[in-house]
Structure formats: C-alpha cells, structure tokens
C-alpha cells in the first residue's frame, strides 16, 4: 500500500514538471496570441542595446560640454569681468546652435517653465499683545504676495491677508494690481493698490520691514487713505546728481461720515466703492538729494459726500509729509534709520444733523484731523560680534488728534521702545513696550512680542 502511494506521488510530480516545461514551448509557438516570438525578442534586445549605447554617448558629451565652455570662458572673458549682456548671449547662442553640445539641464528646465515668471512672496507673523484694559491675546497672520511677470513690462501683484478670527479665518484681498512699464521713467498701474499718498503703507507695512510690532495710529485711522481702487502713473527720474520720484492716481474717494455723532465729519477710507461720480485725485512726490535720504509730499483731494445730499459739494483735502534717512555711521559703528511722517485732513465747513433728527445736531463743523509718527532705529552693523550685530534698537513717537466732532475718541499720543533680534535679513524677533495715554482716559500701555518672517 505504501509502495502504491509512493508511485502515485511520483506520478503527480512528473505531471507537474511536464506542465511547467510545456510553458516555454508555448511561448515559442508563432501562432499563439499575446506572446513574442524569439525573433521579436532578439530584435527588441538589439534595439535596447543600441539605445543604451546612444545614451552613454550623450552622457559623455554632456559631461565634457561645461568643462570646455568653462575653459573657453576663462580664456576669453576672464574670471572677474562682467558677463555679456543678455542680447549678446542670445545672439551667440543662435550662431553656435548647430555645433554646440545640448544645453545644460538648468536651461532646459527654464525653457520648460515658459517665458512667464511667477513668484510667491510675502510674510508671516505671530504676536503676543498684553494691553492695559484689554484681554491679552496671541494673534497670527499669513500675508502671501502673488507676483506674476507676464512679460518684462507687465506685472501682476496681489496680496492676501489671512488671519484667524473668532472661530474662523478671515481672508482679505489687500491689493490686486496690473502694471505696465511704459519706459524707464513711467509706469502705469490699474486695480487695487496701496495709496501712494501714504508712504508708510506703501513701503513699511510688512511686519518684517516695520521695526515695531504695531503700526503708527496717525497714518492708519481716518487721516490718510491706505488702499485705493483706480489707476495710477508713477516712476522716477534723475535731476543732475539727485533724483525725483512721483506717483499720481485717480481712484474711488473716501466717504464722509454724517450719521454718527462720534465720527461726524470724519473721512472713511475703508470703503472701496465710491459714493458719487467725483473721483479722488492724489499723489506723492519724493526728492532724494543724496543716496539714502528722501523727503516726500503726498496729497489727496476728493468730494466725500454722498451724491444728491447737502454734503455732495464738500471738498476734502489730505496732505502728508515724510522723511526717510538711512545712514551708515563709522562713529556709531552701525546703521541709523530715521523715519517720520505727518498728515493733515480737512473737510469743508458743513452743518451735520441740521434738523436734530439724529439726536446730536445741529453740529456746525470744519472737520480737521491730524496725526503722524517719528521713529529712529539703530543697529550696530559694524561690530565684529555676530550676536550684538543682530540686535536693533527702535524708538517711536506717534500721535493722532481727537475725532473732529469732539464727541468721539480723544487725542492719543504713544511712546514706544523696542528691541529686535534679526535671525536672517528678513526674519526678526521683536519685543516692545508702549506707553499709550489717550487724553482724559486711563492708560492703554502695552507689551508686545512678535516674530515676523519675510519670504
């Protein structure tokens, strides 16, 4: 019985071996579908070997290419001479295209990306604020800037402000502008842009540029526009050894507050849509007598009253003067920045709530408001010790006058001292203390810690 079982097992194994051995035979059968013949297999193998050989040749040529180019460059141009202009380089490329080796990988990738250039820039910040009379709080925001250069003359720039608020996230479109470089001295822009009449907003607002954790009140609250929707022309040109820069714009204007006792006569720059057919006209002219020093004068004139009301013909004028000085001092072993800006707004005389129906009139008023700041910063950039060189001390005074009706917020003056530590040219840790005393009210002194990173 045991012998019979052994014979059966041997027979089963033989059958399995026969089945397995028959598979290659089937593969060679020219009439079977779904399999290659020996002849086809050999042809494919030969093609693969030929391709491999060709690839090896190309690799060798590519490795030899840059070395040869580098040697030629050293002989012809020299290591420290200025590289040829882009136009010359392009012409040379055209001449040599038939004989030269394939372009380097970087160039090939560049051409794959196309001719337009896109860059995601911006900054992120995180802050802790402890202010007298308010609950202490952490805050954070992400401010991406989308830059898209369609051609060397056309640029789109747009910025978002994304920040957590309550149980959700606020997303604001801060600006979105298409600009065109007309020539070396003139550029046009349309869309939503930073008001050129307010130099702080245009240049110093990003928190990796602003040297203190908070922003000056005088240039943000009702005296000057921050964002304008319209069209602008801008540029700069030399006058002898000095330079002048300019920006003029036409945009939707501010709205005059007429219904609220506290804010009567105040200009509201936060509305991006206009309330009448009259457009605001504004601008700024800057003068640079020497490198690192700029003096500017900005203005905006508008009719802020609602169309069809008694306030429609009132005219508003805002003005601003600014000074920016950046100097390296051997005596102080470092860099000194001095920034200052002061602004005035004025709205023609009017009677607010003339019949008393709103409960605060009649209130005759020529609405005036002013505010500004001055800041000085020092960084010991010429010291040999890295740790000390990365510190920067900042001191700021800022002020905002009372709301024009006399029934709203009182005037406010603040003094702020800060210490920054720069982890990189665009990453900073800031600490600051602010003495804030609104006239006639309890103090709102504040302590800040902030980290900001520009990218």
């Amino acid at each position, binding site marked *: 019985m045991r012998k019979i079982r052994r014979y059966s097992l041997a027979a089963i194994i033989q059958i399995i071996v026969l089945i397995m051995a028959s598979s290659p035979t089937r593969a060679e059968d020219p009439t079977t579908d779904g399999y290659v013949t020996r002849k086809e297999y050999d042809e494919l193998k030969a093609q693969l070997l030929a391709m491999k050989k060709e690839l090896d040749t190309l690799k060798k040529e590519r490795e030899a290419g840059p070395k040869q180019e580098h040697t030629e460059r050293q002989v012809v141009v020299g290591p420290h001479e200025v590289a040829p202009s882009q136009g010359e380089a392009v012409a040379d490329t055209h001449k040599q295209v038939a004989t030269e080796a394939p372009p380097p990988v970087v160039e090939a990738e560049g051409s794959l990306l196309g001719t337009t250039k896109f860059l995601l820039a911006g900054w992120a910040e995180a802050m802790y604020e402890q202010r007298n009379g308010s609950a202490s709080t952490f805050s954070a925001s992400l401010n991406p800037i989308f830059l898209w250069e369609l051609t*060397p003359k056309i640029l789109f720039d747009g910025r978002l402000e994304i920040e957590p608020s309550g149980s959700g996230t606020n997303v604001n479109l801060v600006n979105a502008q298409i600009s065109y*470089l007309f020539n070396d001295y003139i550029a046009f822009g349309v869309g939503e842009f930073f008001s050129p009449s307010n130099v702080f907003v245009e240049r110093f607002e990003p928190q990796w540029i602003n040297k203190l954790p908070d922003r000056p009140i005088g240039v943000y609250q009702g005296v000057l526009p921050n964002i304008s929707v319209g069209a602008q022309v801008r*540029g*700069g040109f030399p006058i002898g050894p000095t330079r002048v820069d300019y920006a003029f714009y036409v945009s939707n204007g501010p709205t005059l507050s007429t219904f609220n006792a506290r804010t009567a006569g105040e200009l509201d720059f936060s509305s991006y849509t206009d309330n009448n057919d009259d457009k605001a006209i504004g601008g700024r002219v*800057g003068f640079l007598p*020497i490198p*690192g020093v700029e003096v500017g*004068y900005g203005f905006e004139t508008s009719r802020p009253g609602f169309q069809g009301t008694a306030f429609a013909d009132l005219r508003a004028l805002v003005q601003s003067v600014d000074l920016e000085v950046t100097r390296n001092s051997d005596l102080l072993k470092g860099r000194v920045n001095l920034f200052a800006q002061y602004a005035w707004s*004025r709205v023609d005389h009017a009677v607010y709530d003339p019949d008393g129906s709103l409960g605060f009139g009649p209130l005759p008023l020529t609405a005036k408001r002013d505010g500004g700041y001055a800041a000085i910063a020092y960084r010991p950039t010429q010291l040999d010790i890295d740790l000390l060189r990365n510190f920067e001390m900042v001191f700021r005074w800022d002020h905002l006058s009372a709301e024009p009706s006399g029934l709203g917020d009182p005037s406010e003056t603040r003094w702020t001292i800060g210490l920054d530590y720069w982890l990189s040219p665009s990453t900073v840790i800031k600490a600051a203390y602010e003495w804030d005393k609104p006239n006639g009210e309890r103090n709102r002194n504040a302590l800040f810690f902030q980290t900001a990173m520009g990218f």
Partner: protein
Amino acid sequence: MIRMLNRGLLAALLLLFISTSVNLFAGPKAKQKTAADSGSAASSDTYMGLTGEELWSNNCLRCHNIRPGTMYGNAQWDVIVHHMRLRANITGQEQRAIVEFLKSSK
C-alpha cells in the same frame, strides 16, 4: 484750504532742511563716481556713476534689510526687482543694474 496747503508745503521744506542737515554729520557718503571715473560708455550695470551693488544697497536699505543675491534664483530676482521698481519708483536703468549685480553676485 490754501492756508492748509501752505502748511503742508512748509513742512515738506522743513523736512528737506533736516535731511540735508543730517547729511552734514552722517557717516561716509555712498561713493558717487563721476561719468569720467566710470568711463564714457557706461555699462548696463552702472547708473549715475553708481554700480549695481551701490544702487542695490542705497535703494533697498532705504526701507528694509538687503537680501543677498544667493537668496533667490535669477528668474525670481527679475520678478522681485520689477515689483520693487514699481514700489520704490526707481528708474529702468537702476532696475537693470541691480538685477545684473544680483545675478552676478552668486
């Protein structure tokens, strides 16, 4: 209104006076070469006798710390300096000189 306009212009003149005063006691001036120093045919990386490096330093430092050329790629610098030209109102020649310097400084 006119009286207010005068006040603004007066303040602008006052700031101009302060700025020139600051220059008297400030540190070394940025090197300002004459046209003769830089040769009769100025190359595209100079403007008003200033090199691309000096223009980069003078213009960028007015507002923020300068970032080294190695921080971004060539195409990125093209976009950044284009954007900054619009923001800081620099001329086209300055833009080209600065870009050329940043690309060559790597």
